[in-house]
């Protein structure tokens, strides 16, 4: 297994990750497409107030023999699986390859001015947040702001989109600095003041005490920008009348956007982005830094706007994950979770397409990486040749379980419940431990599957054929599937199976699909209870009636 790590992004979280890993003895390749490590932006209060520590860190990383820093370098492609990724990088027109065991994406968010979104264009009296920060920095310790044209300053923030505590903190800090300057008045027009970050409520309170005025609006004010004349009109809900402001300077917020390369990198890596384009889907199973792919981690503001402190928390969590993946005496031989029958595989590549973890490649037959595979079984159920079997959950084993369950005497309609081990199975056990009033205690039989995506149409039909009156497939909620699509596949298969049932004259209602979480035993009881009720109304199934006859 290769134990070096590729870090994409040479800003402060990337540098920190490189440093921590190198100190533990991992080789690090630190890649950035700019010409300098660390980047320019100092908007982050944590960055600007920790200059010494950061420059020490930078020196250490630059000098560390285990860190290879590649600047002006683009990330081109990646193949392979965790522990053995092959990465192609490009410097000018030279493309070269490196092998790494893991990849950390530390492509930090960028800021964009929202002036256009407020119908404003840049001018001497319309500044972006970065520009006012530059002015304030230039004003120095004695807070000498440039002249008379800089007395009455209005900030607009959070009125185009919901911003976040980072944006808010920048605004409050600048407003406060202006307010303490001689003869200056700072006014902030804002929707929701975002303070869900340590220390921000105190800062906000201090700025108000110092005299910064806050008006809370529901929507953007009317702003007229006419040369040196700025006029702002809005209705204030506290004063209950219209307010007009004619500031010397208007400061427009800057929003955080994903790194310009984020979408492209996500595609190349085979990981997802969220609806705003930040990397890593918001899935509780991936808290905090994991992705759908083993060995690929997303940290810092690559995954959501965050300050340096939280970015470095991500770094430590990634280091823990990497130690588990590549570290000493861990996973010496990862347990085999899946077997490919090479005689049956026809290389249709269905498995490659459906695998949510990019664990499957091929030589002349499908090959599944034991490290990358999460054992969900989506591939096994989709394989048209039944060439893939999941260890402990093979088709034969599941069918044997179905048949065994039929031997049990029941005093109600017999229900087979396929339970995802991550949610429904836990909920079922919880209902049992809490002795919640389920349908007749031995009328339903749970069959544990690694993911609802492992439930085949064949298994469902087998259950009916063997004598079940009803079948339930219980999956995790949407966006909560550890294998992302497992619940979706399960839903589709249930729909398919329903069609087949009706073709053979069985009522579709005998088959149900529902989503549930591990901590919902009550919901489990409700779902199974409803199915029992439905089956009692329907009476014995045709198959049972025929068998009885």
């Amino acid at each position, binding site marked *: 297994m290769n134990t070096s790590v590729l870090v994409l992004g040479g800003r402060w979280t990337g540098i920190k990750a490189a440093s921590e890993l190198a*100190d533990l003895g991992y080789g690090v390749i630190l890649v950035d497409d700019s010409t300098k490590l660390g980047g320019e932006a100092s908007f982050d209060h944590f960055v600007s107030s920790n200059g010494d520590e950061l420059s020490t860190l930078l020196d250490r990383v630059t000098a560390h023999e285990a860190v290879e820093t590649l600047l002006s370098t683009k990330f081109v492609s990646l193949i392979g699986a965790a522990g053995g990724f092959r990465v192609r990088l490009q410097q000018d027109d030279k493309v070269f390859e490196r092998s790494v065991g893991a990849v950390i994406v530390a492509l930090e968010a960028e800021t964009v001015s929202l002036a256009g979104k407020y119908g404003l264009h840049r001018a001497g009296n319309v500044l972006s947040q970065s520009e006012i920060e530059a002015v304030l920095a230039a004003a120095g310790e004695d807070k000498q702001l440039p002249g008379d044209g800089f007395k009455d300053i209005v900030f607009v923030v959070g009125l185009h989109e919901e911003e976040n505590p980072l944006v808010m903190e920048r605004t409050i800090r600048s407003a406060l600095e202006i307010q303490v300057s001689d003869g200056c008045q700072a006014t902030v027009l804002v929707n929701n*003041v975002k303070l869900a970050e340590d220390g921000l409520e105190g800062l906000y309170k201090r700025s108000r005490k110092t005299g910064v005025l806050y008006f809370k609006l529901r929507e953007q004010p009317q702003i007229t920008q006419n040369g040196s004349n700025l006029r702002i009109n809005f209705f204030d809900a506290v004063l209950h009348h219209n307010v007009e402001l004619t500031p010397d300077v208007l400061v427009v917020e800057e929003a955080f956007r994903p790194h310009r390369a984020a979408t492209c990198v996500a595609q190349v890596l085979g990981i997802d982005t969220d609806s705003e384009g930040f990397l890593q889907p918001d899935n*509780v199973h991936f*808290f905090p830094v994991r992705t759908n792919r083993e060995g690929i981690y997303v940290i810092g503001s690559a995954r959501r706007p965050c300050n340096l402190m939280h970015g470095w*928390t991500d770094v430590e969590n990634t280091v823990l994950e990497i130690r588990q993946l590549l570290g*000493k005496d861990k996973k010496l031989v990862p347990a085999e979770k899946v077997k490919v029958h090479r005689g049956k595989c026809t290389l249709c590549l269905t498995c490659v397409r459906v695998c949510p973890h990019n664990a499957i490649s091929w030589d002349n037959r499908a090959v599944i990486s034991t490290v990358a595979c999460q054992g969900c079984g989506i591939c096994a159920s989709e394989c048209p040749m039944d060439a893939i079997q999941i260890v402990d959950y093979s088709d034969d084993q599941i069918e044997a379980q179905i048949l065994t369950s039929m031997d049990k005497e029941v005093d109600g309609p017999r229900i087979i419940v396929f339970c995802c081990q991550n949610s429904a199975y836990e909920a079922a056990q919880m209902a049992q431990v809490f002795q919640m009033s389920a349908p007749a205690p031995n009328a339903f039989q749970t069959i544990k599957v690694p993911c609802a995506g492992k439930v085949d149409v064949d298994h469902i039909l087998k259950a009916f054929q063997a004598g079940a009156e009803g079948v339930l497939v219980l999956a995790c*909620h949407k966006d*909560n599937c550890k294998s992302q699509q497992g619940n979706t596949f399960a839903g589709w298969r249930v729909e398919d199976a329903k069609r087949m049932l009706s073709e053979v004259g069985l009522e579709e209602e005998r088959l149900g699909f529902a989503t549930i979480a591990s901590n919902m035993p009550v919901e489990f009881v409700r779902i199974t209870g409803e199915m029992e009720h439905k089956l009692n109304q329907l009476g014995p199934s045709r198959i049972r009636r025929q068998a009885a006859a």
Partner: protein
Amino acid sequence: MQKGSKDNLEDQRSKRVLVIGGGIAGLTVAWELARLDVDVDLVEKSSFLGGYAIQFCCKATDECQKCGACSVEKRLLEVIQEPKITVHLKSELKRVSRNGRFPYTISRRPLCVDPQRCTNCGLCLEKCPAPEAIVRGYSKNNVPLYAVDETKCLYFRDESCRLCQELCPEKAIHLDQKPHHVSQEADAVVVASGFQPFDPVNRPRYGYGINRNLITALDLERMLREKGEVLRLSDNKAPERIAFIQCVGSRDHQLRHGFCSQVCCGYAMRMAEAIHYRHPEIKVAIFYIDIQNCGKSFSGFYERCKDNIRFVRFMPGDIFQGEGDQLVLCYANEQDGHAIREAFDLVVLSVGIMPGASNVGLADMLKIDLDKHGFLASADSLDDTCTSQAGIFLAGTAHGPKDIADSMAQAGRAAGKVAQYLQTIDGSNKQEDFTG
């Protein structure tokens, strides 16, 4: 790959870490350390692991709302199955000193229920004559599932009752156990002692405790978890109109709580969405000062919420008794400022995260600092797990308000920091060994 050098492994094996608090942060630190081959003593004050987070409900609609409650369930399961973690329930740290390591003493109250023998039959709870003297855990992963509350148990009062012990078919209950002390040494300490929810009795104008249909968000979490639906406590009927009041105890400068609890907007919106999804006929309003973000892609979530939930930017000062068991809120119309009186069937107080009751004692015992609000202070602006004492680390809400995801992330960082510290006290900065 081959195993690392032998002495390195033995060094790791001899290390023990004391984790104070068995909530989601403590569980995560313990589990991450165990994964690094470190032995952990996990000390929990109450009878059950999981803290407050294990009491929270799933807030999914047809899709997951990313509250993280189910990940607590999973982490708890991982911890109870992990042999490197020794769990001490009903235990509190009494003394700790420092001699290079941390010799400490914990006091253990009697557990009374033998986890090896208990089969979770629940007969003890069913037959116990004293109210709430036998309590049940929140999750099947609470082991043992039942516990004796010695402040309510008649045996502990005057030895007048041994019914549960006599009835238990497994002989799993031993009421005559005595409190005792356990002394140990740890190489490092992690404080993950958690928070306490704001007690709305301290905001008397709300009149919490008078009308039963005025509940806290924590009450609602437990209700949704246990019953799967929302009911008025006065008549066990589904409410038609629910109001959430945000910032109860948080951002309250009168009470000197000059901080945002960071979680209340998230849980209120998520629970409101979950209620709306299951019962679209229930009308939900949220009274707030400023809506705070939760989770990723917040804009989209907030927009969806606005379709189903009424957001009112006003903090009702008083809650009045209405007709029947209704509660009346008084607030100003945002357009003209006129007062509106509106009746609700259920009012939920979104209580905030307050410093844990044991913070002062722990800070004193461990010689670490409190911040001005009473949370345990970190000593490094870039690392909120560091305290002013080498070898003592922070995780979770002991340090300040955090949601489940942030608590877990900070706990992961604390575990990493502990591992680093354990290597430095060896005097040799050993590196991982590979064959490459």
